[in-house]
């Protein structure tokens, strides 16, 4: 199986590469359209700023490529946000794979610190069962670091509550995305990555 990671300007993908290697997969880090199109699985991770990330994707015509992919694609963190229609971050038009708009957290109380950082629970896994969460118990903990979130929508397959309930994971056709970092979420995250590879 060939697994490709989309190479663009959004931060450190070292941990995603390491997580795949631990599962015995040697990923290809690339922005080559042909390689990405032919890969069996595509990962679209990243940390970074939405506007800069989108302009990089457009310059390298990766935006049109990504939306045309037909194999399973997994967006992680900023990858998930970029797969949506629009982001409040830099008022950015995104890829539009999910017809939902990304918002910034507004603290409701002083204890609500932004970014949302640390281990939080994925819930409502049974509402719209998704293979990504096969074998994952309700209310299991995964690791988050983010200031923007995808609101609950028709494509939500896992919810997390921080200030308000938001989409921890979304799924539509061959496109999967998590706000949390499965590559940093211990055994639970490893199982989610394995589930993605086994789709």
């Amino acid at each position, binding site marked *: 199986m060939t697994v490709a990671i989309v190479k663009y300007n959004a*931060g*450190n993908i*070292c*941990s995603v590469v*390491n*997580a795949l*290697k*631990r599962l015995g997969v040697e990923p290809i880090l690339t922005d080559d359209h042909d390689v990405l199109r032919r890969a069996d699985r595509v990962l679209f991770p990243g*940390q*970074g700023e939405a506007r800069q990330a989108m302009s990089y994707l457009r310059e390298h015509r990766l935006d049109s490529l990504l939306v045309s992919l037909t194999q399973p694609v997994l967006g992680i963190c900023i990858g998930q946000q970029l797969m949506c229609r629009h982001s409040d971050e830099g008022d950015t038009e995104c890829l539009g794979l999910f017809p939902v708009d990304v918002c910034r957290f507004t*603290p409701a109380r*002083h*204890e609500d*610190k*932004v*970014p*949302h*950082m*640390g*281990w*939080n*629970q994925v819930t409502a896994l049974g509402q719209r069962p998704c293979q990504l969460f096969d*074998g994952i*118990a309700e209310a*299991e*903990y995964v*690791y988050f*670091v983010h200031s923007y979130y995808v609101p609950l929508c028709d494509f939500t397959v896992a919810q997390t*509550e*921080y200030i308000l309930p938001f989409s921890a994971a979304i799924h539509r056709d061959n496109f999967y995305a998590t706000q949390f970092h499965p*590559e*940093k*979420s*211990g*055994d*639970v*995250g*490893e*199982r989610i990555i394995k589930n993605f590879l086994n789709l």
Partner: protein
Amino acid sequence: MLAKRIIPCLDVKDGQTVKGTNFVNLRQAGDPVALGKAYSLQGADELVYLDITASHEGRKTFTELVSRVAAEISIPFTVGGGIGALADVDRLLSAGADKVSINSAALRHPELVDEIATHFGSQVCVVAIDARCDDNGLWTCYLNGGRLATERQLFEWAHEVQERGAGEILFTSMNHDGVKTGFANEALARLSDTLTIPVIASGGAGALSHFRDVFTQGHADAALAASVFHFGEIAIPQLKHYLADNGIPVRLIEGKL
């Protein structure tokens, strides 16, 4: 609910962990990777690796260690010790660290905090503050592992680094460190209640109740400790269950998969 984090801290010298490690029968107790992995399996939420080597050769060994930790451990980890410039941060993040912790360098060159936040994002920038409280209740920040007093005051400095882009504060009370009578909860609560970034409490852990108190009274987001874990005085699963029983949200991992 967002869990309160428990963070073991490992001091590393010339590629080996320094403090005792009799909490579990480890074949290579001095190996920071094996030890970190054991903590991770026990339910530690993050790890901190502090390089206490002074030599250039030691720095290289530490960077190699960071790569090994990143390859083998699937929870977030922070590295610190001897970070003086942006190039050090780049080297450690490229090796696979999730966050870096800066202390003396930030006090000497506060603009380093801005630079790290701008180049790599606030989420990677942990500012560690060692401070001591005098008889008048004044908290003074110290440099060089607590050896050199500065003009800086804890609360002002914490707010300044937050403004400069720090993602978290790791506060060690020198009055409490090593004494094992509990954390500096009053100062911690004041930090946590006035900052908008998370606060990691360090210094003073000696009993289970100290961890409960640091969350309920100190309002900390995370608690860091070294010797109580390394010497097996407190086991992480036992601590997590104790905290859960006391109504504190923690991540329990046993028997889930």
